[in-house]
């Protein structure tokens, strides 16, 4: 029964096999899997599926985009960065900043990995730390610190009391929300990297060679 089922399946996909070669099939499969992973991660971030710890949310889209940019081909990584950013923008107030940022991060990481950095744990950890920190701190700066420094520009009364209140608010948000969110996001980075690595290794001979061809990388990943 099992053999006949496999035989039928094999016969059914024979036309596809004739048209699309093995490597191309694997490429499409890789892109489909990564796209699904981006979509699921966006939902995990915004629904949210991930536990909210004392009002602190994780931002898993950031480390996911960095992992894809570090492991996948440059062009598709840039597209995934833009896709992840657009998904994020659907769920946020703003003017499309997230799509610009994630596209830029994907491009920068892909280029750094290709021309400058070795693909090892240290460089990946630094890239994650840098990209996530820049995002969280710039949001904190624009939403809270700038408000504390220039209250009148945002419609607040520029009095000593309001400036004091806004400064305390900015510090509180930094210590109770922004930095914990940064830590929470970085804690998820290894898991997301492992998922992307699994998908890329199984579906891309070229990328696997690229990752494993570097003896330092082979030891460290």
């Amino acid at each position, binding site marked *: 029964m099992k053999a006949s089922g496999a035989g039928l399946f094999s016969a059914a996909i024979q036309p596809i096999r004739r048209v699309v070669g093995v490597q191309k099939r694997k490429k499409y499969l890789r892109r489909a899997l990564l796209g699904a992973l981006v*979509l699921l991660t*966006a*939902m995990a*971030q*915004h*629904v*949210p*599926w991930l536990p909210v710890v004392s*009002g602190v*949310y*994780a*931002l898993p889209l950031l480390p996911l985009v960095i992992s894809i940019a570090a492991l996948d081909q*440059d*062009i598709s990584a*840039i*597209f995934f960065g*833009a*896709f992840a*950013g*657009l*998904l*994020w*923008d*659907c*769920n*946020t*107030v*703003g*003017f*499309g*900043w*997230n*799509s*610009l940022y994630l*596209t*830029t991060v994907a*491009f920068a990481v*892909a*280029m750094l990995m290709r*021309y400058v950095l070795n693909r090892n744990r240290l460089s990946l950890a630094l890239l994650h730390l840098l990209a996530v920190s820049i*995002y*969280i701190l710039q*949001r904190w700066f624009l*939403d*809270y610190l700038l408000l504390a420094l220039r209250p009148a520009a945002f419609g607040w009364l520029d009095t000593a009391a309001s400036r004091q*209140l806004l400064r*305390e*608010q*900015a510090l*509180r*948000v930094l210590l*109770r*929300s*922004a930095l914990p*969110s940064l830590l929470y996001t970085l804690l998820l980075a290894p898991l997301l990297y492992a998922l992307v690595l699994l998908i890329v290794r199984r579906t891309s001979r070229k990328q696997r060679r690229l990752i494993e061809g570097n003896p330092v990388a082979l030891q460290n990943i």
Partner: protein
Amino acid sequence: MKRFIRSAPVRLFAALLIALSLGSLLSLALRGNHSPLTSAVGLITTPLQGLSASLSRSLQDVAAHFKSSTVLQAQLAKKEEEIRALRQRVVDYDNLKKDNALYEKFLGLKEKNPDYQFARATVIGTDAARYFGSLILNRGSLSGIAVNNPVIFGNAVDGGYLVGIVTKVAPTSATVETILNPNVNVSIYDTKSSETIGVATSTAEWAEQGYCVVSQLERSTFIDRGDLLCTSGLGGLYPKDLIVGTVVETRDEAASVTAVVAPAADMEHLRDVFVLIAW
């Protein structure tokens, strides 16, 4: 260097950057609407997100049952088997019943204000990168929702509880900033004295605890614990008589009084809300 600049990834990045930047400029120009690219992606993903939000809620309900004893679990499993057999009819009946119950909650508000027009929406997510109460709804401009529409939650006896205000709209979704967000300010009056007393807002410290504050009140203001605060209608953003919350504490500051207000709407467990699209 020339080869690098002319390479495919760099050209693709530049093209995407220009396209996304144009979308962002358009979003700014449209003053609160999403860019066309974001709206296009949202058309596909918002229904998926709505589905995943309802699945997530169902899973949370199931998880609660694991805290029960073994006997209760066995009984529950047996009941679930029975329910599965009747599921199709029960699901249709439950949906109709839920709709009726929800609209019934607004009958009081609608009867008092026949000119109000509502759009019903469900909360499908939150903005993870913003720290104070931003909600995502599964309805947008296609349902008549626009920026600065108030969002309420209902009660047949008291009327509408103010949840917040719409700040961003796409064709199939809307972003709401709740009254726990320090950027949201609501002019309020005390129902006991019928005086417009000030502006309810929040701060980082109070928002974490789930409260709003009305600060800089004069010492002569009649306000006390237990007072009900409603929107005054001043400013035109919110109609009058939407319930904001109840005073839980008054604090004496140097030259003024601060009232701590517990919002009437339970922000953490909101599911179905109504957006006031016209009044």
